[in-house]
């Protein structure tokens, strides 16, 4: 399974792609997949991250999503943001087509 979290990362979230259409999704605190990074549950610390990933992959997870994994997020004022360029692009859309992806509806 893909693993993109940096070692020693403090804050992490879980992401995947939805089976039916490949849409980027995040695991939210109310135990479901959501489309917006803003609604993702953020785990503080390695143990919390492991627990978060475990909740995001119940036995039947493959019926809904592909390849869930943890990734590092950083504090950004009162909010959080993905740490890597890759996850920033997944959360927003292609940087060369601002009219496409999640950023288009923002």
């Amino acid at each position: 399974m893909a693993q993109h979290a940096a070692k020693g990362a403090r804050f992490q979230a879980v992401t995947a792609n939805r089976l039916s259409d490949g849409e980027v999704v995040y695991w939210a605190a109310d135990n479901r997949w959501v489309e917006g990074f803003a609604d993702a549950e953020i785990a503080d610390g390695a143990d919390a991250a492991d627990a978060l990933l475990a909740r995001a992959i119940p036995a039947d997870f493959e019926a809904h999503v592909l390849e869930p994994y943890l990734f590092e997020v950083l504090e950004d004022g009162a909010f959080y943001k993905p740490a890597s360029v890759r996850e920033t692009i997944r959360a927003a859309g292609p940087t060369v087509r601002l009219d496409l992806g999640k950023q288009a509806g923002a």
Partner: protein
Amino acid sequence: MYRYDEFDHKLVADRVNQFRGQVERRVSGALTEDQFKPLRLMNGVYLQLHAYMLRVAIPYGTLCSAQMRMLAHIARKYDRGYGHFTTRQNIQYNWPALDKIPDLLDELAGVEMHAIQTSGNCIRNVTSDQYAGAIEGEVEDPRIISEIIRQWSTFHPEFTYLPRKFKIAVTGHVNDRAAIKLHDIGLVVKRNNDGDIGYEVHVGGGQGRTPFVAKKMTDFVPKAKLLAYLEAVMRVYNMLGRRDNSYKARIKILVHETGQEEMQRLIEAEFSKIDASQMLTVPQEEIDRISAYFAPPAFQTLAAKSDGFTQAQSQDADFARFVRANVVAHKQAGYAIVNISLKPIGGVPGDATDAQMDVIADLAEKYSLDEVRVTHEQNLVLPHVKLDELKTVYDALAAHDLATANLGLISDQIACPGLDYCNLANARSIPLAQEISERFADLDRQYDIGELKIKISGCINACGHHHVGHIGILGVDKKGTEFYQISLGGAADENAAIGQITGRAFTEEDIVDAIETVVTTYTDLRADGERFIDTYNRLGMAPFKERLYD
């Protein structure tokens, strides 16, 4: 061009139904993702960063207008209004939903197209020269044998679970426009002393982490025996290719580790058995049947010169520049080969909108004997345009931002989708291509610089062909930040060569300046008439390195 008969139609329809069943089994949970993945890949379906991606084959780069119109329709109906033409004569759609892909494939099958074997560890789409059947000096139209190979390799029962993917390219011309020496198998159409057609076979080229130029395995395989020879190469590879490490699984590594002579011996041993069985000897009537589809189209007898064409150039400087950069002589008097650059200044290399595809389809139907070609450098071609009608075609292209006069120039770059779309990428490629394009936007400056091929990959898999760019750029990731490494001196033509890395990588802020430094080093040091690659080959790396790092 080749047209499906009942047999071809039925098999492609079978395949769509099969994939529909596979998608249903995946969605129902009968297949795990691990089991489904090779099946979806074998039908061209990837998972990328934002969505699924579908890669549709354009066999040996030839399309008719109805097919191009269908590609536009699919972009509109199943995607977000555009498609991306790739370095292997495919088109990629970036946003299709998995559950709609079987319907999409149904529609594609209606115009004799498919996504079969555009991914996966099988024999991929056969690629060829975009000028096939139009350029002077061809030994034979390479699409004849390409179509025979396409059929033989489709659903091949023995070679669908190879150690790794397998790519075949064919050129029928001494000027290689298909990068055949960078393929697992590269074929050059030749005529022997008896006047018979056959093929020079190169094996083990490729890019990626460990680039190699292919080694010549034999000078001449007669046409009727080529499939037997290819099957022999494939069997040696399938039995002996490494499966313990995916980075060492391509045939280039087997050739490298086995040695050229031993590899020749192994292939000949298999070939002699398969040939003796006559099982794959191509019957003359089958060669004739397929050749007939590639007979020259109905060219008119025209004067070699067109007064209207000459006059239009003198009246319209932009048109004259377009002719100079993008138009190539045709073998038939009174016709020309027209290249359509998909590299507008500041644009995304290889992308075309549904509206642009429709315009090109219309132009092909009206003015190019119903044909469009796709090039490995991510451009399109109208192969058979009358000189008398070239200005009309140009005006229509210009009205849709399709007349950029930069073919083969510094802004005509190859770029992979990179980190903006691709799951494997380490860095973005497209924004860099856009910045370079804008830095060198002035066409007069581009003409002064002359032929210069920049090729950009966002990771070591080298989909952007950086190893064989005159200037190659490789994006690398250092702790989540993008850096770019430059290589110089690569070439993808008949003088294929792997470029050399200049030294340490540059930041996103510095890379375009560094490219400009390389270019001005060349313009300062070039001798009369020297292209960039000539100057590099004469002077080597030293002067470039000195200016880049001192």
